[in-house]
């Protein structure tokens, strides 16, 4: 069962494999985002309550979903790196962290921009907003720890441990923030209070979501390739690659 996975422990093979995947992800993301965003921003019906400002939903929600899934993905990669001593898994966790942080920031900023017309304020201490903010802190901690080490292999391991500790904490934090919110301020402005979405809003959302997901995949592949190169910069195959590039 593991036989087909085995060659990918070799950085060189994985590097070239990732290189082949990258254009696919990039083009898929460009096509899906082009269709999805045009559809969402120009043709999808406006919300009957929120009007046009509802359209930020098509960026905000994919970013929020991805920000959380990227953290889980990073923790899974870090865990397999720790348990099976896969160096490349550590590298992929390191590649994912900044991407996740950026998507968390996008979710927060678009959320604030959406909150201003809807709730009349940029920020409320709503449970979801607060836990998203804490998620951003967790990402920044992982990134800062990763940058603090000179040796990238060690950095990957240390950041991986922190990511795993963080992923155990995320449900606790989320739950505690929700409780804190209900205790301290009662029911605030309710979030998206509406039943299932209609199909003509749902389809552009799906396009946008998968467009952003493939965008994450493409960017992560690029970062992953860079990580592999920087960790193996003394290897002959990397030197050969560089020589070819210079010619």
């Amino acid at each position, binding site marked *: 069962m593991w036989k087909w996975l085995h060659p990918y422990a070799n950085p060189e093979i994985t590097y070239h494999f990732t290189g082949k995947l990258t254009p696919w992800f990039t083009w898929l993301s460009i096509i899906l985002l082009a269709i999805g965003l045009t559809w969402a921003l120009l043709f999808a019906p406006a919300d009957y309550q929120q009007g046009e400002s509802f359209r930020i939903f098509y960026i905000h929600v994919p970013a929020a979903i991805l920000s959380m899934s990227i953290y889980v993905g990073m923790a899974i990669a870090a865990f397999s790196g720790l348990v099976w001593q896969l160096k490349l898994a550590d590298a992929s966790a390191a590649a994912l962290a900044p991407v996740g942080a950026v998507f968390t920031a996008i979710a927060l900023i678009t959320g604030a921009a959406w909150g201003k017309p809807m709730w009349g304020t940029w920020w409320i201490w709503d449970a979801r907003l607060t836990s998203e903010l804490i998620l951003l802190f967790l990402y920044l901690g992982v990134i800062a720890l990763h940058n*603090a080490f000179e040796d990238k292999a060690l950095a990957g391991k240390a950041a991986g*441990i*922190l990511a795993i500790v963080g992923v155990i*904490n995320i449900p*606790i934090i989320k739950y*505690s923030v929700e409780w804190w919110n209900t205790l*301290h301020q009662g029911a605030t402005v309710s979030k998206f209070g509406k039943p299932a979405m209609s199909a003509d809003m749902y389809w552009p959302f799906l396009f946008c979501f998968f467009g952003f997901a493939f965008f994450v995949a493409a960017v992560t592949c690029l970062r992953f390739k860079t990580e592999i190169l920087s960790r193996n910069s003394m290897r002959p195959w990397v030197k050969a690659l560089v020589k070819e590039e210079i010619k």
Partner: protein
Amino acid sequence: MMSINIPSYRQAFMLMLKRDLTIALRHKDDIFNPLLFFIIVVTLFPLGIGPEASTLSRIAPGIIWVAALLATLLSLDRLFKADFADGSLEQMMLIPQPLFIIVLAKIIAHWLITGLPLIFIAPVLAVLLHLNENSYGALMITLLIGTPVLSFIGAIGVALTVGIKKGGVLLSLIVLPLYIPVLIFATSAIDTAAMNLPYSGQVAIIGALFFTSFTLAPFAVSAALKVSTN
């Protein structure tokens, strides 16, 4: 043939605990400085916010807990730093007993040195902040169960950053977000107690956090120390 007497797990634990406590008692600054910091931080709040008793008693639980968090954070460094600097940490990792035991002893020693004194001084500060009379029990209980959690979680952060030269700020960036659940449940227990309502639910959750961190954190610390000492 010489037979080497290998101490049992319990003996190793007690030895480590005694060693760390002895070192701390000989450097009394380690005990008093975080305590002094705790007192000063709490004093700053009334000066910044104003002396009205009603305002102060409303925010007293938060102030005391945030100050306790910061004081713990400040004292975390001494957990592994000195041992790392003089090389004894690496020797400890070579001991035949599992690293888990050593780490557990060190964390408990750290809590006895820095967490426990906070609990004794906290009621005095609560008086200064006009904490609601019903809340004292909750304050003591949450501090008693909550500060060990801070030591356990903080130990993971220290173990990760001990090898880094300027680890101090990084440590707070890593550890403080993980402290949030303790802060939330502790202050909400104290607030609930002020309203004369039962606060056993919050205490139970802090207890759950305590046992989770008690059992899991030493493993994470051991793994992190192996990375840091490499």
